[in-house]
């Protein structure tokens, strides 16, 4: 029987939205306040959902400690208290929107998550705005 398990963590980071292929006016029109050149920040909440069968010996879908360690190492250490545009390699040539951050987190975890199958990355930029990514092409 498949069970879904979700683990939550938080990180704080700054970013700004800017596409160098756009003119200054296009950037301003498309991204509004998010285009302010020195950036702004959020407290992000990340929920990672994994799925799998319940192990008959442990009663676990996943060893939570291992999942937590992977999330800490691959996401929180890389992104917490960072300026995403300048300090996280994925965003050197890509705008760090909530959509793109969720996809980047999926890619980071997908290869490293050897303890369970990744089902969903849910990233809250704030309480009233979030993105879900299921690895869909």
């Amino acid at each position: 029987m498949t069970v879904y398990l979700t683990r939550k963590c938080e990180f704080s980071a700054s970013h700004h939205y800017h596409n160098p292929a756009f003119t200054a006016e296009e950037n301003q029109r498309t991204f509004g306040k998010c285009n302010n050149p020195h950036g702004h920040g959020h407290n992000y909440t990340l929920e990672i959902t994994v799925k799998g069968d319940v192990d008959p010996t442990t009663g676990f879908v996943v060893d939570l400690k291992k999942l937590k360690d992977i999330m800490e190492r691959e996401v929180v250490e890389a992104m917490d208290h960072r300026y995403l545009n300048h300090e996280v390699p994925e965003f050197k040539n890509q705008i760090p929107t909530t959509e793109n951050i969720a996809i980047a987190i999926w890619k980071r975890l997908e290869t490293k998550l050897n303890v369970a199958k990744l089902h969903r990355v849910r990233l809250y930029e704030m309480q009233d705005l979030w993105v879900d990514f299921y690895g869909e092409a």
Partner: protein
Amino acid sequence: MKAHLTRRYWFAASHRLHSEKLTAEQNREVYGKCNNPYGHGHNYALEVTVSGPVAQDTGFVMNLPELDQVVKEQVLERFDHQNLNFVVEFRDVVPTTENLCISIFEILKRKMSGVHLDKVRLEETSKNSFEVVWE
């Protein structure tokens, strides 16, 4: 790559649950306090989920101000601080949260362009919520 974006909004409205197809006694039995003649109100939390490919040039599924504008013009301005029983959508329909959720889904489905409307979720109170999913 396809991502799903959810935005949460709030509006406040009153309603009375009363069906013309039922007797006064049946209405009281079915709807209980919700049948009180002068109605009552809720702060509704509305979650709208849209999906689509993340655009290469913007990094967005949908530009948020566009989504906000559609929801504001089509839903919030229609229902916020209204007595739902007097809103045209509920002239012949009981304004349960199920029917309100369906109504909002239908309104947004007509108005949404360039993205797929996945889901409308409506919380009547923190203890009960209703969802209409595109199927």
